[in-house]
């Protein structure tokens, strides 16, 4: 089966070459994106089949000389192949329709299949060399895609920061894998699995893996590139980056920390729990204050990555205390939420892409009323918004419910840090979920409801049939995953068991397809019954109303307490919608300030309101760092203008110093 995956990667390389040659024509575009759909479908099928199959390995004579390239398809890899397959198929299908709006297809088509291939390669890599090669290829290919619209405002900046963070993340991961390989240099993952690093080395590997993989995933405080880079790319690439690439980073973290490293100490779990909780709340708060639709979605990715990492942190905490069933439940919840996030975030990015192509506008302050102009997109995006807001019976609720159940599992943990951290995380997660609901009421309401706020919104058009199909498919997926959570939990079980050693009871055996994580008396949730109940009672109430109540319906201008209508601009705007939340949470966290300037009567000046927001992470970490780097560069600048003699002296001194250090070391 592993050969199929490698063939899929080769096919992607072929598609990329074809795209470079024939990407300017409509047919070429359809072939490339259609090809990626087929490749993704194959990968999806392989993942589904391989998750319960025995581990397959393969060594090819490529890669480092004398070592070769090792590949491995185990349950964890298979689970993430499913994610890639899903996300890739959806993005390809969406792009078959949406890419006709692309101004510069020659900047997208060669890189898009490579991006897909590199993510597949990361997942099946079984030695450090192949893994890092694929990781860096993924960074570079996605960077090229981010730079597609380089002439747009802010893209170059985004690309620069992304490149810096990607290089940094790759470097840190290289150090982590180097430490795992040890002095003797066993580069294969098989050797790392059996070697047990010293406690200090294990701790260091964990920290490096968290920084390296966390920055790719978008964990606070190394998330800063994500809300800049993800929205800058073309929409289907944004969907792939937010929906799938962040999960590949999650894969890297799980692979290193759960598989290669052994069992990290409990304080590692504490750090992950802390960063996860902070990411969730900070991400969603940023999203709530954002008015660029795609950037809003990118910030919400930070939120969801935080939720997933809370699940992972819980699994680490339980694992450190040898409570395997608990670890299994927490990791199941994390993986389930990862899958759900792939589904609804891809869907929402498709929706944002459809809005962008249909109206040319991504500022929600200029949108509105699109439910009339783009009815199908509106339905699909509504499902996505409800799923991401964790509302039953959709999938987001099912996975967050599981995470809450995992938190309640064991209050008897012996470590005080965890005893205090887990309840705080529960509060942070609950806060993030409630804020996400507010955020997506705002996003959907401002974009699709109300009256159009600009001519662009008035003239918006529904996207092509491919794009609508992609969105509808993913909306259906969100619904299915929500009503059949038990099937997905069972599906992920082999991967969870391989990583934690624990296993949940089979869920599909329970009656009414109810999810019972521990015991029926403790907690249970049945998505399908919930959906049936809501459906039946909606239908019953509609039936009763139509039987007994008046049918008369009159259209009239709206009431609005009798206020005269001054046009669509009198509607609540996105900024005003977020104002209460900005005032409650933002005044502390973002040092939000508002100053209103109302001229005196008789003064003909326009009134103005000025808002000020500060990103604590950027101001606290990155801006000082940039200042230090730039000051150091200024100081070192004279070194560039020395004579050859001076340089030779430097080389000589450096050589002597190194030799001296070496002799002293021995």
């Amino acid at each position, binding site marked *: 089966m592993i050969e199929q995956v490698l063939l899929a990667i080769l096919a992607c390389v072929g598609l990329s070459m074809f795209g470079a040659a024939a990407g300017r024509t409509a047919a070429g575009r359809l072939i490339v994106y259609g090809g990626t759909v087929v490749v993704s479908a194959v990968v999806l099928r392989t993942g589904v089949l391989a998750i319960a199959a025995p581990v397959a390995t393969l060594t090819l004579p490529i890669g480092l000389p004398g070592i070769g390239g090792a590949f491995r398809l185990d349950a964890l890899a298979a689970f993430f192949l499913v994610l890639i397959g899903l996300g890739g198929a959806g993005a390809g299908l969406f792009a078959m329709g949406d890419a006709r709006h692309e101004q510069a297809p020659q900047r997208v088509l060669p890189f898009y299949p490579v991006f897909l291939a590199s993510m597949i390669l990361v997942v099946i890599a079984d030695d450090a060399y192949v893994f890092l090669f694929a990781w860096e290829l993924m960074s570079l290919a996605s960077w090229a895609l981010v730079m597609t619209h380089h002439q747009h405002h802010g893209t170059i900046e985004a690309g620069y920061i992304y490149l810096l963070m990607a290089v940094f993340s790759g470097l840190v991961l290289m150090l982590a894998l180097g430490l795992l390989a040890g002095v003797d240099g066993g580069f294969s993952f098989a050797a790392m699995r059996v070697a047990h690093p010293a406690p200090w080395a294990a701790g260091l590997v964990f920290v490096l893996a968290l920084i390296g993989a966390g920055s790719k995933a978008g964990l606070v405080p190394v998330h800063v590139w994500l809300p800049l880079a993800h929205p800058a790319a073309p929409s289907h690439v944004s969907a792939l980056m937010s929906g799938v690439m962040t999960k590949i980073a999650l894969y890297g973290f799980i692979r290193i920390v759960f598989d290669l490293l052994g069992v990290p100490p409990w304080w590692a779990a504490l750090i992950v729990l802390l960063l996860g909780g902070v990411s969730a709340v900070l991400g969603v708060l940023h999203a709530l204050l954002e008015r660029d639709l795609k950037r809003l979605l990118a910030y919400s990715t930070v939120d969801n990555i935080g939720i997933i990492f809370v699940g992972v942190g819980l699994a680490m905490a339980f694992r450190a205390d040898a409570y395997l069933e608990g670890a299994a439940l927490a990791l199941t919840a994390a993986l389930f939420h990862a899958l759900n996030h792939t589904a609804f975030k891809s869907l929402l990015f498709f929706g944002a892409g459809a809005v962008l192509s249909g109206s040319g506008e991504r500022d929600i302050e200029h949108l509105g009323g699109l439910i009339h102009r783009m009815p199908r997109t509106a339905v699909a995006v509504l499902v996505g918004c409800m799923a991401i807001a964790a509302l039953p019976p959709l999938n987001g*609720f099912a996975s967050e419910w599981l995470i809450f159940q995992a938190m309640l599992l064991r209050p008897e943990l012996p470590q005080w840090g965890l005893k205090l951290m887990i309840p*705080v995380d529960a509060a942070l997660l609950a806060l993030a979920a409630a804020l996400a609901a507010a955020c997506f009421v705002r996003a959907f309401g401002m974009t699709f*409801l109300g009256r159009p706020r600009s001519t662009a919104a008035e003239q918006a058009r529904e996207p092509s049939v491919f794009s609508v199909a992609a969105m509808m498919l993913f909306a259906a997926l969100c619904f299915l995953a929500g009503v059949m959570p038990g099937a997905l939990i069972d599906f992920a079980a082999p991967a969870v068991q391989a990583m934690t050693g624990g296993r949940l009871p089979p869920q599909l055996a329970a009656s009414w397809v109810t999810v019972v994580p521990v015991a029926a008396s403790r907690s249970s949730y049945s998505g399908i019954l919930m959906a049936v109940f809501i459906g039946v009672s*909606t239908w019953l109430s509609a039936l009763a109303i139509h039987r007994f109540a008046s049918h008369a319906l009159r259209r009239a201008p709206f009431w609005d307490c009798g206020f005269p209508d001054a046009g669509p601009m009198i509607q609540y705007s996105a900024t005003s919608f977020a104002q*209460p939340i900005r005032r409650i949470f933002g005044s502390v966290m973002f040092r939000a300030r508002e100053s209103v300037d109302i001229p005196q009567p008789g003064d003909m000046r326009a009134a103005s309101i000025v808002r000020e927001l500060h990103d604590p992470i950027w101001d606290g970490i990155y801006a000082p760092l940039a200042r230090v780097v730039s000051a150091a560069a200024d100081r070192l600048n004279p070194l560039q203008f020395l004579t050859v003699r001076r340089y030779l002296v430097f080389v000589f001194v450096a050589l002597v110093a190194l030799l001296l250090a070496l002799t002293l070391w021995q």
Partner: protein
Amino acid sequence: MTGMAVIGALLVQLVQMVLVLAAAPLFTGLVRKAKARLQRRRGPSLVQPYRDLRRLMGKDVVLADNASWLFRVAPYVIFAATWVAASLVPTFAAGLLFSSTGDLIAIAALLGTARFAQALAALDIGTAFGGIGSSREMMIASLAEPAMIMIVFSVALIVGSTQLSTIAEQMIVLPVGLRVSLALALVALVIVAIAENARIPVDNPATHLELTMVHEAMVLEYSGRHLAMIELATWLKLVVYVSVIVCIFFPFGLVHDGAGPFAYAGGVVAWAAKLAGIGVLLAIFETAIAKMRVFRVPNFLGASLMLGLLGVLLLFVSRGM
């Protein structure tokens, strides 16, 4: 279970669903009546809410020109989600047939679904008032919902379950005693219930004063049968919250599924008595207190969130010592 037993259980479940639906307008009528008496007014009759419903159902729907399908579907979704939540809460009997469908977290989330639909419907017409209501509702929810989850955590850590039926039965038998966390949870839950049901001091269900209203601002554009559904859902939601409070903290008189018709009747009487008691308390509270400014509400709700978190922290810390 045998066939007859399943039919019997189904019947009890249906009785519960019909009962909450029938009791909801009466409960609101009771609170209004009690409030009026406290204010030395005679007040409308107890059955006035039923009359209101009939009147609204008989009237035309006046729909804004630019209302979309969402505006017309939302009332049914709001009503259905609230009704499902109401049928999952044990009122007179615990352990009903479908009680395993969702636990307390799911019930809170179902009410969240209803709120989501309501907030979206408020934005659909594109008026300033709809926006105000929607924005403030989500602001209140952003604090009330995490507080609710913290309350669920407190209770779940004490009885070891998030399932409401199990919680109620455990609370009867467990020697719970006077627990600090439980007291904190009760205070927090009362605050959440007040905020979520748009009662004084968070919102005033009787006002149309523009600058203070939240819930009323959202339903301003609704009329006729749509308004009837939303009103019924609002009354139902109040009953849900009161039932949750009595089910967790005052579960006396609750019977278990399969207890027999007379026991059920006793359960219904006990539930009705508890509801009436809380209704009168609510009326006294609302009469005694003044409405808050909107930006005081976060402090009020933040206190509830912190109480809940404190309760959970206490429970985590006191374990395993």
